């Protein structure tokens, strides 16, 4: 199967006025129809930048400096701005983290949904309204007819995120990029949203890039996973491979840091008490180590890790890690 979206060796730099600093350095991702790719990593690793670069919405002073992005065979980096506008909201759309602020507070729900339909599908406003209503039904908003006239502030957080999803799905895009779509929501609502996304994906065969910092969400949603660290994709593979047998010490670190909920009998199991730690923090832009970027925080790092750039190591077909010691002991002290 061909990927619908392919990001190859993407490099993004930011012009700080004095120099151009690397934000993303060789990120490669593949997104298949009907599948979900989870992109994980700590804050500041470049997850959002990857998404924005794909959408062609990088902020001022950020620019793609290398690599390629292909959407259904079309080279997005070579496309004209007008062509990109045609694709945005149409062939690829995006869901943002804060449903509170991502909807325009002064426009009705109807306007915000129909706008994208009228723009891309050249529908009349009556038709667009019908489609909008259909979308609201699809995202399971109760009383969709009444909600059309509502303003975002009249909706709860979960409803707003549903509206965002309706907007994103309105033109039946090939790709949806969801940048931490549930971080601002309560857990019970998060569960509802995830279920909704999965249901819709099954109906439409849309490919989803799910950006998150939560390995639990990855486990819940993703088919494939890419782990980003400091602008590099340090590990990628299927979700079973990565969560089941993480190859990169960073991935393993993340796993051990995450507190697990122990229910039932396991709740009183004293062994599970310990919580792993990754010391230090993600280096800020411009302070990336030269060789392995994770080396300063890595318990396994030796001299080589600090001097030489690690190779891509393929542990299994489709499962690769950017590390000198990918298979070293699983337990991180």
């Amino acid at each position: 199967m061909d990927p619908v979206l392919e990001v190859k060796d993407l490099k993004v730099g930011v012009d700080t006025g004095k120099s151009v600093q690397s934000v993303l350095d060789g990120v490669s991702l593949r997104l298949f129809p009907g599948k979900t790719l989870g992109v994980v990593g700590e804050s500041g690793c470049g997850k959002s930048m990857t998404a924005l670069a794909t959408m062609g919405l990088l902020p001022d002073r950020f620019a793609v400096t290398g690599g390629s992005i292909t959407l259904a065979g079309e080279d997005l980096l070579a496309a004209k701005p007008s062509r990109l506008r045609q694709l945005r909201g149409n062939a690829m759309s995006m869901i943002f983290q804060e449903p509170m602020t991502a909807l325009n507070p002064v426009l009705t729900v109807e306007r915000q949904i129909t706008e994208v339909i009228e723009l891309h599908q050249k529908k009349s406003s009556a038709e667009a309204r019908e489609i909008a209503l259909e979308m609201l039904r699809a995202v399971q908003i109760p009383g969709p007819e009444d909600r059309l006239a509502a303003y975002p502030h009249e909706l709860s957080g979960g409803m707003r995120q549903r509206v965002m999803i309706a907007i994103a799905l309105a033109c039946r895009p090939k790709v949806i990029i969801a940048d931490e779509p549930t971080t601002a929501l309560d857990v019970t609502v998060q569960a509802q949203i995830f279920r909704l996304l999965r249901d819709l994906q099954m109906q439409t065969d849309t490919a989803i890039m799910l950006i998150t910092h939560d390995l639990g969400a990855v486990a819940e949603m993703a088919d494939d996973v890419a782990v980003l660290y400091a602008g590099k994709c340090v590990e990628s593979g299927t979700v079973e491979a990565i969560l089941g047998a993480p190859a990169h010490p960073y991935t393993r670190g993340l796993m051990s840091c995450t507190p697990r909920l122990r229910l039932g009998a396991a709740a009183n199991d004293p062994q599970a008490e310990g919580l792993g730690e990754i010391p230090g923090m993600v280096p800020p832009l411009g302070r990336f180590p030269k060789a392995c970027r994770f080396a300063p925080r890595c318990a396994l790092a030796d001299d080589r890790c600090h001097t030489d750039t690690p190779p891509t190591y393929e542990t299994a077909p489709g499962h690769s890690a950017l590390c000198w010691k990918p298979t070293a002991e699983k337990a991180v002290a």
Partner: protein
Amino acid sequence: MKPLLDVRDLKVHFPLASGQTVHAVDGVTFSVNEGDSFGIVGESGSGKSTTAQALMRLVDPVAGTMQLEKHDLSSLDGEPLRTIRHMMQMVFQDPYSSLNPRLRAGQAVREPLDLMGLGPVRGRENRVDEMFRQVGLHPDAKRLFPHQFSGGQRQRLCIARAMVTEPRLIVCDEPVSALDVAIQAQILNLLKRLQKDKRLTYVFISHDLAVVQHICTHVAVMYLGEFVEQAPTGQLFAAAKHPYTWSLMAAALSPDDRSRAGARFTVTGEPPSPINPPKACRFAGRCPFATDRCRTEKPALRDFGNGHRVACHYAGELTPPLPELAATA
């Protein structure tokens, strides 16, 4: 043993400009023994932070009592309140806004000592150095400004500031939810270690069940201004009895476990507004087990032994829709 903190029927209401009232905390009762850590979990808007602020007397309760050792927190005011503030300190959620950007790190930690005149003036600087070391910061960092620290380091500063007065009680309002998992783990480990070393007492607020389970000895589940279930940690996670607690547990995601994906128990809807909360069971509107009784009669908080209290008419009668709990039930 007399508990360190004893809260009875605490209520905090906020009047709105429109004339309505937000029932942010609506009758909460609990007590915490010295050396324990009492966790409060619940969704956004359930009144966790308001409870914390009421404990710290940052907002004024409209009813109820709060007894910290021999002091009645709810009746103190002005100077007397100020003079006992050293007994209780707080760690806030957002490490970025909880440090005054104009104070150097050292000053920030020292400020409570100066303001409350604790300890000999000369010894204060040493005390600050010691606090820095205890939270894992180098004392040289005292002269830096908050913006020169990372989020995790700032949270360490906040913890140092909270501990410098040797408080009997520390209220932590989601101290790690603004942090990345890796940093979160560091801070959780720090808090835990400090508690063990100093026999600190925590009231620990979080929306993350896993975190609460990790840190706390007792847990209360809060919904719309009320505690719907509270119990010692082990007991709660082994045998939760309230449907809302179940829904929180079901919604928690784990990287190890993909089996439940797609088939988990979810409740519908979102919490109603605390402006006009339902008169009877507040969770009834979202509860798959709700009956007419739930919609008309307010469930009492019933004790199931060992301090396990549940506010549900059918507590103990329902089968949990979670396989793990069902196994132990």
